[in-house]
C-alpha cells in the first residue's frame, strides 16, 4: 500500500520535473512546480503512513489504547505547512508572471530581460 503511495507520488514528482525542464510558458512551469509540490507532499504523508493505521486523534479511550497503530502525525503537520508554502510560491510567482507579461509582452521564460528588446 505504502509502496503504491510512494511510487505514485514519485511519478508525480517526475512528471512535474519534466514539465519544469521542458516547458517555456511560465504558467505551465508554475503548474508543473505545483505538481512536484503535490507529489512531494504525498510522499511525505506516505512516509508517515503505517499499514492499517488510524488517525492520530484522541477521540476516545479506544484510540489511546491503539496509540501504536496511529499513523505518524509529524509528516502531516509538515505537509500542512508545506502546502501553504506551495500556495504562497504559486501565488507570488503568478503575480510576478502578470508583471512579467506586462513588461516583457510575453510569458515565455525565454523572453529576454534586456531593456528595449522585444521578445
Amino acid at each position, binding site marked *: 500500500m505504502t509502496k503504491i503511495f510512494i511510487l505514485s507520488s514519485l511519478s508525480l514528482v517526475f512528471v512535474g520535473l519534466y514539465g519544469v525542464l521542458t516547458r517555456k510558458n511560465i504558467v505551465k512551469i508554475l503548474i508543473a512546480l505545483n505538481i512536484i509540490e503535490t507529489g512531494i507532499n504525498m510522499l511525505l504523508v506516505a512516509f508517515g503512513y503505517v499499514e492499517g493505521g488510524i488517525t492520530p486523534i484522541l477521540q476516545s479511550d479506544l484510540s489511546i489504547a491503539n496509540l501504536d497503530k496511529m499513523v505518524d502525525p509529524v509528516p502531516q503537520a509538515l505537509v500542512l505547512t508545506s502546502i501553504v508554502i506551495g500556495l504562497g510560491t504559486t501565488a507570488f510567482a503568478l503575480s510576478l508572471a502578470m508583471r512579467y507579461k506586462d513588461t516583457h509582452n510575453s510569458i515565455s521564460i525565454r523572453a529576454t530581460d*534586456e531593456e528595449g528588446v522585444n521578445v
Partner: protein
Amino acid sequence: MIELLLVPLITTLSIAFFIKYKRVTWTLFLASNGFILYKLYSIYGMWSLSYSFNTGYEILGAKFNLGVSNNPIGWYFAFFSALITLIISIFSIGFNKNSKSNVSVIWMLIIFSNLGIFFAKDWVTFFMMWELMGWTSFFAITNGKDKALDGAKYYLSLSLFGAALLLIAISLLGAYTGTFEILPSAFGLLQIINSSTKLGIVILLLFLTTFIIKSAIFPFYMWPQKVYAEGPEDYITFMSSVMIKYGIYPMAIFIVPVVGSVNLPRILNTGNVLQYVIGYLGAISAVLGTLLAIFQTDMKKLFAYSSVSNMGYILLGFSSMTIVGFEGSLFHVVNHMILKAAIFLTLAAVVFRTGESEMHKLGGLVYRMPLTFMTFLLGIIAAAGIPPLNGFGSKWMIIQALMSKKMVVFAIAMIFASTGAFMYLFRALASIFLGQLPDRYKEVKEVPLTMAVPMFIMMVIMLLVGVVPGVVMKPLTTALKAVGYNVDIASWTVLEGSLKNATIDLKIVFYMFVAGVIISGLMYFFGNKSETVPQEDNYTAGEYPEEWGVDADRFNYSYSFYQPFKEMFDPLLESISIDDLFASVGRNFEYLSTTIQGLFKRGEGAVLLFSIGVLLLILGGLII
C-alpha cells in the same frame, strides 16, 4: 632592523595625508629615501640583525612569524637599489613638476616592498612583499593615464600568475619541509630532490618560473617592452634598473645554491641538467633580447629588450655555477642597475623635453642637450661592456666562468649578444642624439638642475665602478663570505677570472685607454685647424636636398636602421612569437567571458542546469 621597514610605511601614510602639498610630500620622500640609504650603510656587516612579528596566524600546527633579517646578499641588493632609488627620486622631482598626480605614495610602498623582498627571512614575508610590489607597480605604471593600461595589465597578469606559482611552490615547500624560512628550506628542498626527484624538480621549476617572469627571461620577455613603452619614464627607470632584479635576488640566494649542489645527471661532464635549463633560458633571452632590441623603433622598447638581454647574461653567469660566474652575475646586477638607470634617466630627459620616444622622429639632440648626451654616451659604452666603464668587468667575469666550464654554446650566445648590443646601442645614440636636428626641436633646452644633477652623479658612478670595481666587489665578496662562500675579498681594481693567468687590473686598462686618447689627442692637436660648419652643410653629391623639400627629419637615416639584417630574421621571429600566444590566450578568455555572460544573461536554463548539477552530485554519490 624594523625601522628600515617602518620608515617607508610611516612615510607612505604621512605622504597620503599631505598629498595635496607637493613640497611636503617630496621632502618627506627624499628624507625617507636618504634615511633608508644611511640606515643600510650603517647596518653593513651586522649580519645577525633580525626582527620577527608574531601574526598569531596558525599554520602547519604552529603560530606563524613574519621575519626580516639582515641577509648579506640581500643587503648587497638593497643597498645599491636604495642608492639608485635615491638618485632616481631626485630626478623624479624635476620630472614630475608639472604633473597632476602625486606618485610618491605608491613609490614609497614600492620602496617598502623592495626592502621587504631583500630582507625577508621567510618565504611568506617574501611572498607578501612580492605581491605588494606587483600591484603597486600596476598603479605606478598606469599613473592615472589610460595609455599605459594595456602594458600594465599585461605586467599585472604575468606578475599575478607568477605569484600564484610562487604561492604553490612555497606551500609545497612548507608542507613538505615544515618550514618557511628561506635558508633551511633550501636544505629541505635538496633533501626533497634527493628523496623524490620529481616533486623536488617541480617545486624548483615553480620557483624558477616565478623568478624568471619577474626578470623578463625568455618565455616572459614581452612585458618590459609593453610596460616601458607607455609607462611614466621616471618609474620605468626604477623598474628597469631595480625592479627587474627582484627575480635575480631569490635565484641567487635559493635557486643557485640548490642547483649547484644537487645531485642530478650531468651533461658532458660540465654541469647538471638544471644548470643547463637555467643556462639555455639565459642564452635564449640574451640572444633574442638583442635581436629584438636591434629591430625596435621606439627607444624605450629598445632598452626594454636590452634589459632582457642583460638578464640573460646574469642567468648565464648563474648557470656556470662557479664562484667567478656567480660573482660576475651579482656584479652585473649592480652594473646593470647603474647603467640602465643612467640610460633611462637620459631617455626620460629626452621625453620630458620633446615628448617623443620614437627614435626616427628624433635626432641631433646633442646640440641642445649635451649633458644628457654625455650621460647617454657613457651609459651605452657601459652597456656595451667596453672597458673603462662599468659594464665590462661583470661581463668579462661571466664569460670567463663560462669558458672555464667549457659551456661553449652559452659563451657564444653571450658574445653574440654583447656584439649585437653595439648595434642597438649605437643605433639609439645615432638616432636620438646625432644626425640632423629637426626644426621642431630647435627650441629644446637642456634639462633643469634637479634632473641634471642625478644624471651627472650617474656618470661619476659609472666611471668610478668601471675603474675601481672594488667599490662594488668588496661589499659583494664580503657578503658572499658572510654567507659562507669560499671567496677572497676583492681588491679595489683587480678582477679575478677563473682561467689560468686571468686577472685584469682595470686601473691599467683605464690608464692605457687614457694613454691612447692622449696620443691620438696629440695627433689631433698637431693637425691643422678645423672649422665648424652648420649641420646641414653636408656632402650631397652636388645636389641641394632642400630644393626637393627634404627636411632635416628625412635627412636622418634612422628608420629601419638595420633593414637588411632584419629581413634575415623576420621569418624566425615570426615563428617564435610568444606574444601571439599570450594574446590568443587573452582573446580566448575574452571570448569565453562573453559566452559566460550570455549564459547568465538569458538565465532560462536555470532549472536545467540545476538538474545537471544534481546529476553531477549523483555521479559522485554513485561512485562509492
